[in-house]
């Protein structure tokens, strides 16, 4: 069975698209969601291997998403992506495996994905 895709969750469409392009260019399978609720659906449907999670989003925010995930007993590494000063603290709060403070370097993103994500397919 092939490893699950990387799920990118962000309410800003251009960031969502940019991150998806980067990961796609590097050969990772990618799924996107614009808020926490859509992300929960995507988790159920696509069984991702890593979630890159924005924290402040409409409908269901990052905290809500992480809580719902834990409630369903889903074990899944999360990387917090946020433009706020508290990236590090928030990552700790929801038990995330890492964090990316926006704006992040492309190499930082790739390093995190390499450490936690699936093997890229060529």
């Amino acid at each position, binding site marked *: 069975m092939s490893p699950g895709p990387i799920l990118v969750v962000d309410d*800003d469409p*251009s*960031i969502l698209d*940019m*991150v998806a*392009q*980067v990961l796609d*260019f590097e050969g990772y399978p990618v799924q996107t969601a614009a808020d926490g609720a859509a992300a929960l659906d995507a988790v159920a449907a696509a069984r991702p291997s890593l979630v890159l999670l924005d924290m*402040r989003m409409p409908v269901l925010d990052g905290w809500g998403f992480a809580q719902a995930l834990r409630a369903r007993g889903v074990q899944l590494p999360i990387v917090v992506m946020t*433009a*706020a*000063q508290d990236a*590090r*603290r928030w990552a700790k709060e929801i038990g995330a495996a890492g964090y990316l403070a*926006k*704006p*992040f*370097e*492309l*190499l930082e*993103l790739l390093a995190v994905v390499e450490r936690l994500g699936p093997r890229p397919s060529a």
Partner: protein
Amino acid sequence: MSADDFLQLVTQALYVMLFVVVAVRAAHRPLRANVDVALLFGVCSLIIAIGGITTALRITPPPALAAASGTLLLALPYLLLRLLDDFADVAPWLMRGAAAGLAVSAVLLFALPTPLPDWLALLMVAYFVVLVAYVAIAFVRQAGYSSGVTRSRMQAVAWGSGFLGLTLLAVGFALAWPDRADAWTMLSHLAGLASGLCYFVGFAPPTWLRRAWQEPELRAFLGRAARLPRLPDTDAICRELEQGAASALGAPRATIGLWDEAARVLRFQYTGAVAPAGFSVDARPEAAGRYAVRGGEFELQPGQLLAGVAFAEQRAVFSENATRDDPANTALYEAHGVVAVLAAPITAGERRLGVLVVYAARAPIFADSDLELVRLLADQAAVILESRALIDEAAQVRAREEATRLKDDFLSSAAHDLRTPLTTLLGQAQLLARQARRDALGPAYTAGIERLVREARRLSTLVTELLDASRTERGQLVGRREPVDLTTCAREACERLASERHPCQLVADGPVVGDYDPVRIQQLVDNLMENAVKYSPEGGEVQVRVWQEGAAARLSVADHGIGIPADDLPRLFDRYHRGANVDDRRFSGMGLGLYICRGIAEQHGGRIWAESAPGQGTTFHVALPLALALVAEGGAA
């Protein structure tokens, strides 16, 4: 000595003592009321002296002396009436009638042989009793208009006059009913003692009695005063204080002038129930030239008018006749019916807050009590105005804190909003750069894209620097603390920044652990190292040292760069300061980096400094306390 003799002796002693007290006071302060009081008891003492001498010599007084004694006795009601006239209206016909009655009595006393016919003696007694009763009633009425000590003193004087009337009435009864003469004489002597006591209490009350009388007045004033500082503004407080002062003194007008330190003037307001200062804007247009009248305000220089004098000389001022004591402003006082002025400075410790002025159309009878009360009220006003100032200050602090919070919220959300497009910009540009390299696009493309990446990074740095600078300014840079190893921080920074162009050397014996905000300490170390790299020439080694020195953790970063001119060193850590020898095109940045570094060091309770010589490189030093207990202030532990 019989009991009756003793009674008389005590009464006489009382009157003579009272005369001494009021005479000293009149000599000290020759106010009209004081002089009239002294005159009244001077006459009493004279009558007592004549009686005493004739008794001591065991002689029957010669007719002329007896007549003089009788005339003096009959002068007492007239003198009381005069005293009453000093501070209350007495009908002119009554004054003239009393004078005429006295004159006629004197003529009859000297002209007719003794003893006088009973009917005439009784007529004279009636004259005396009626006038004294009138005075007693008038004092009771005046007491009703005033309050506090003055009220009690007036009541005492009213009682004294009543007993004085009774004294003579009893003498009259003794004449009319000779068979019960002993009883009437006894009553007369008792009433005489009572009148002496009451007069003493009224005209020369001992201090403890004044305090006791003042107490309820003060209690009421303080009760009201307690809620005064809560009024919406200082003006409202002043209006209340003015009303309180006017009613406490039974005066028609009281006003407070507040000292404006910047303009160096006393400001009086026109608004409020009590017409302040008694000066209306339009009443004296010609005064506008001499006294600044502006809007609803009236301004006085220190020393101008009696109020200004009280303020300038920082002492209570009393004038029973303002036009006499301040003749330069006669027209102004007359235009507003001001006769007497009581003014006291409102001063809290060393702080001059203003002046309290009470105006009256007549001179008060007990000026000393009133002046004391004005002084007391001015002191209370100072306390109230000071607490008001404190409340205002606290509100300002709260408002400033709220403004700071709003600014912080604004900056945080502005930074957040700026970073979102920056994330896309930086990521997209870096993706393009990777794609360009992999697809071997022309170097021209790559250079252009690299420029995009560089500018996006620079913008990102600026956003962070601005936010950090704002937090530094407010001392809110340092957040949650935890044990942090400086050596690890330095090693990480060294590994990250070292390159072939700039080797990095770390010198440390072992871990140096302190209680710090890990993010900020790493930022401090990174920033110093980035600076060292930035200003170092090609191949220039950067040396980082970490060690412990007493209770301090020490870190130094040395480079072999362009160095810092001595002139720039003191201002190196100031906001927006950049060295004179820094080429703006080569080195980007807003000049906030070292300012933030200083903020991080100082908000951890430490300090930062630099040593440098141009051309020979620079060494930055940081000293941080190891234990949190040594930190004077800081974020949450």
